[in-house]
């Protein structure tokens, strides 16, 4: 069943890639280029999704993470290159965001659901919650502490990986370590983004 529609799906996704790349080759403005690169990333996720097995899903997650990580680094390089680093960012002047408990409730829901999910997806969901909270509350957190937490959780995750490979009989321990490690790692990375908003009070 997947085989019948594979080529049709590929036709459309590759077609969108052709259009996106053509636009990219004609674009002159740097920020527009960044947005268009984001567009062609979508096409690559589409090609992976068309495999349609569990493997496809396991390949989509790394693909997504690579994309967002590089976009973050590039946006920062762009700001430095254009000398826009020191400009203040204002929180969108929406009343809901500033005075009400709405961000608190929303981020709590996201963080709780993310921790229940745990693992990779949970990290992204909970991280979104944390990011939303920090960005809305215009609070500056300690960058070093977050980086330390993320580094430690990375070590936890690597240790779990080696348990899986060399001491397979302790798979249960390794599973818990990996799931928690990657959860903390992704959350802290996403919160770092929130800190970078550095909104003026």
């Amino acid at each position, binding site marked *: 069943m997947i085989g019948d529609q594979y080529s049709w799906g590929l036709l459309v996704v590759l077609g969108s890639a052709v259009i996106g790349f053509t636009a990219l080759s004609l674009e002159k403005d740097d920020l527009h280029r960044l947005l268009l690169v984001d567009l062609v990333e979508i096409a690559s996720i589409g090609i992976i999704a068309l495999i349609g*097995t569990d493997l496809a899903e396991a390949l989509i997650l790394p693909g997504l993470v690579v994309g967002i990580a590089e976009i973050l680094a590039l946006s920062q390089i762009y700001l430095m290159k254009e000398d826009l680093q020191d400009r203040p960012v204002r929180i969108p002047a929406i009343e809901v965001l500033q005075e009400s408990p709405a961000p608190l409730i929303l981020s709590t829901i996201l963080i709780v659901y993310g921790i229940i999910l745990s693992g990779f997806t949970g990290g992204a969901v909970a991280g979104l919650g944390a990011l939303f909270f920090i960005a809305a509350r215009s609070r500056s957190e300690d960058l070093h502490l977050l980086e330390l937490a993320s580094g430690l959780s990375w070590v936890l995750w690597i240790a779990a990986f080696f348990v899986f490979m060399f001491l397979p009989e302790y798979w249960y321990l390794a599973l818990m370590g990996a799931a928690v490690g990657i959860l903390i790692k992704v959350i802290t990375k996403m919160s770092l983004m929130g800190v970078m908003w550095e909104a003026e009070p």
Partner: protein
Amino acid sequence: MIIQRISRFISNFENLMPIFAAACAVLAGIAILSLPFVYTEDQLYPKNIDRESPLDPYDRGGPPFTQADIVLQYPENSPTAGFVTAYLTPFSWALANTTLHTGTTIVGHPGGILDEILYNTRGLDTVVETTILFIAFAIASYIFRKGSP
């Protein structure tokens, strides 16, 4: 003469992205012309969907703490593959017994087919990928901090 002009065009790094994008567009166009591609039906980690199961899109079989059958490339390299898939935490076991609609939430927990692939059989992928995340954030936060001394 022409080579000189080409090399001068290439050596301006502003023109780098257009050249690469054009090459990608041409190659994707050729790929479209060479469709259809074969789709091999016996894939690794295939899906089987059981709409009646409480683990709905991710029910890959087996009671907890027994080894489930999953199709991997080198079964001899991962002797414990299949245990992770079948494992349910007590919380998710309770969820599975109450409702039919939390399959994805349950599989998001430690345990489940994706954890099997991401952590166990294809763990090296995830190591590399978290490293990419780490490096990219290191670049971003280094530049960010340099801007505000």
